[in-house]
């Protein structure tokens, strides 16, 4: 599934569109501890989080993640948005919770 298809599946809002929507997503990782994401997220995962600090863009770039999905209607800090734009890290948003988004994705990738 490409990031574009995934965004459609979960009806996500596009918060920061600069980046690659054709990337093939390998799965998801859900965590709000950036050190944990750095240790455990896999390449081209989507990252589901409520953390909005600018370091999210750097971590996503470092781990070559497909996109960041911010839950609960959260908006990235201004510095995070700027950094994500520069680094071409796509940020998507949803009013749903981490649990709900992770559940849908889990079911999809489990097949």
């Amino acid at each position, binding site marked *: 599934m490409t990031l574009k298809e995934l965004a459609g599946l979960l009806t996500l809002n596009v918060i920061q569109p600069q980046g690659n929507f054709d990337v093939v997503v390998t799965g998801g990782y859900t965590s*709000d*501890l*950036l*050190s*944990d*994401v*750095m240790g455990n997220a896999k390449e081209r995962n989507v990252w589901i989080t409520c*953390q*909005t*600090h*600018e*370091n999210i863009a*750097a*971590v996503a770039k470092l781990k070559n993640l497909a996109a960041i999905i911010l839950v609960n209607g959260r908006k990235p*800090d201004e*510095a995070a948005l700027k950094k994500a734009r520069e680094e071409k890290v796509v940020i998507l948003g949803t009013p749903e919770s981490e649990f709900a988004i992770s559940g849908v994705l889990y079911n999809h990738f489990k097949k």
Partner: protein
Amino acid sequence: MKTFRADLHVHTCLSPCADILMSPRRIADAAKSLSLDLLGVCDHNAADNAGAVAEAAARFGIRALPGMEVTSREEVHVLALFDEIESALRLQELVQPVLAGENQPEIFGLQVVADAEDEVLGFCPKLLAGAASLSLAEVVEAIHDLGGLAVAAHADREGFGLLGHLGFIPEDLPLDALEISPRLSRAEGRRLFGPKRPLVASSDAHFLGDIGRSSTTFWLEAGTAAEIGLAFRGFGERRILE
């Protein structure tokens, strides 16, 4: 110039997670028996007991700097250290209105406001265990605007630490120093954080027996937050000895 042994991160009974015995007089007594020269009084998102500890400690010639351990929106803990109680109380006025919720003592613990004689003055109703809706950068800026020092609390720790929550230290965040928790030696802290930022070690004491279990020795003109700030920048002969 002389040496000052400092434990810059001590909680009082105002912090819901701290022992009820962490009262101003008992803290001062403990500091005296440990021959500490300087304390930092850093309760979670509150400074109501800082003045009382300062008063109790002053009887032994020990200075207790008024401070706070602020929880940012990212749930990172930042220590604020001041020379004036008014500055700490002003920070409290900025933080507490953007701190959501009311404390439930049976769940989180009592938040006791006490005087220098350990008399109970009341209970803080705010949910001090919560996070303020200020970003880390905003917290550091607020502390600096009030003339204080901003130190990343237990920066090596996963829970509420800068490294655990944010993965790495933001380059442009103007922190005055990083605090390492008692589980790390100074050398280990240096290896983890590199040479760039000053390191302090403190106890993060929640119980009387924890006070001074980790400390920082400074070479200063006087035991003040301003002097510690100068030591961080290596001004004159001021420095961190160990």
